[in-house]
């Protein structure tokens, strides 16, 4: 079945891509808050080491990340093997594997904006809130979140958009199983391989429009957010 000039299988790949980008970005945002907070304020010497590790996905070829993850998550890997031994299935060529791969690949795109936002916020607003009877969680919700929302927005968009365009890591861990691990970028590659340029065009155009409208929306929003951003 063809809808709007695009085959059903391609729509499925597209939806899978969006689902993957959304899930891995939301998980990353939650997990990276403590990490970014620690990096922003720790006096520890280990900070440099952790910062370098976090930035690693920026410079490593995606195939290298994908290769290591495939080994780690596969049936004989440390993680995959452990799962198998307790009666679960390993994570190579699965959607869960894709989520983990995307999260590793997009880690710096979430940690760095958050860390910058926390650093420019500083500890003073939190101290002020504490002297006004706000407990730690209260302070995070009423002071940190509203004052660093530009950082959160940037992190969300960068991670989401980055996952949309991901190819190498996903191909290594996920292969190209339609409906399970075949994302849009891989579907496009397959179409080109099969010399089906028409199908490749359709899917590419959808991704192009999607990415552009996402960025446009964010920049427009950012104009409004700037009024109450961190910068004084």
């Amino acid at each position, binding site marked *: 079945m063809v809808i709007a000039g695009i085959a059903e299988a391609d729509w499925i790949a597209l939806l899978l891509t969006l689902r993957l980008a959304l899930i891995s970005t939301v998980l990353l945002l939650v997990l990276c808050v403590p990490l970014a907070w620690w990096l922003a304020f720790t006096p520890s010497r280990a900070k440099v080491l952790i910062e370098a590790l976090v930035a690693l996905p920026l410079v490593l070829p995606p195939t290298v990340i994908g290769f290591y993850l495939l080994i780690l998550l596969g049936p004989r890997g440390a993680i995959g093997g452990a799962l198998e031994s307790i009666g679960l299935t390993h994570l190579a060529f699965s959607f869960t594997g894709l989520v983990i791969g995307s999260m590793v690949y997009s880690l710096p795109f979430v940690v760095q904006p958050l860390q910058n936002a926390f650093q420019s916020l500083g500890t*003073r*607003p939190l*101290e*002020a*809130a*504490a*002297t*006004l*009877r*706000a*407990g*730690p969680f*209260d*302070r995070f919700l*009423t*002071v940190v979140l*509203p*004052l660093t929302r530009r950082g959160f927005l940037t992190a969300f968009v960068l991670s989401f958009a980055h996952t949309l365009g991901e190819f190498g890591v996903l191909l290594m861990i996920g292969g190209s199983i339609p409906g399970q691990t075949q994302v849009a970028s891989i579907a496009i590659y397959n179409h080109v391989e099969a010399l089906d340029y028409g199908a490749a065009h359709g899917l590419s155009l959808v991704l192009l429009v999607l990415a552009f409208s996402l960025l446009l929306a964010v920049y427009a929003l950012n104009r409004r957010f700037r009024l*109450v951003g*961190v910068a*004084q």
Partner: protein
Amino acid sequence: MKVRFQLKRGDFTLDAAFDLAEQGITAVFGRSGCGKTSLLRCMAGLEPEARGQLEVAGVVWQADSQCLPTHRRALGYVFQEASLFAHLTVERNLRYGWRRVAPSHRRVEWQTTVELLGLAPLLNRYPDQLSGGQRQRVALGRALLTSPDLLLMDEPLASLDSDSKAEILPYLEQLHRTLALPVVYVSHSQDEVLRLADQLVLMDDGRVLTQGPVARVLTRLDMPLAHQQGAQALLEGVVTRQDDADHLTEVECDGQSVWVSQLNQACGTRVRLSVSARDVTISRVPATDSSVLNCLAVQIEALEADLQPGHVLIALRLGNQTLLSRITERSRRLLALQPGDQVYALVKGIAVH
């Protein structure tokens, strides 16, 4: 209340103890870097590494390394920079602490505070639409509205220009008169101390040098304040007479009359006068034919060589109060001044606070 704190950071060590009065303003005074802000932060629980003792209104805030978290301490804290929440209006900044205090624990009235600090016209503005002085007023109101048992102020005027300072000082003085709670006021400005403080804690290099009533500490010859270039003594008195023709006001200080430029104060009002050591000269006889208006009978309490060569610093007893005088060593020798001598202090300039 006994306050004692220790904190080690790098090669700086804070080891300070002092008595906190149940009421009134205790000024913690010292050079920058002497540890006065650290001491205040320890009292607020903002220094997790601090050890010490602090009990406020029957609640133990700190006992050795046992530390009540800042948000559980009934304190108000005014930072050097107002530190308002940039994303909230003035009103919501004020409500931030107010909302978090149970209604049954609120002793400070919303309306009174807003009026006292003149905040009503600012309520809908954002912090970046306020002047420095206005911001600091909001910060003060925000702290007060939590009905604190202890108010901590860290050089609240230091980052303001002189106009904004002049705008805020009257509010602080009014608070001083109306608030029945202990206030710790960290400052390195002698002028603020003269105007506001009741008690003075003098700090140097992480330690407390001395503490006591402000007028006493200012005039102790064994302490650095009296030896400063601008050393001043503080006299307390009561307005007794207005001379409208000469534009002068008479203030009675321990039975002696002091004339100052006319004050807009009713008879019976207590006022503070400050007198610079360099504006006080000493005479063996009452100065009847001199242009100096104020000639007070005093007794020499102590003499000490000043840091400035060839000068001596003299503490003069006026009833229960003390004046300072800086004169040359030669004059002291010619007049043969000795402790216990009855002399006359000719006071040239007097500032009223």
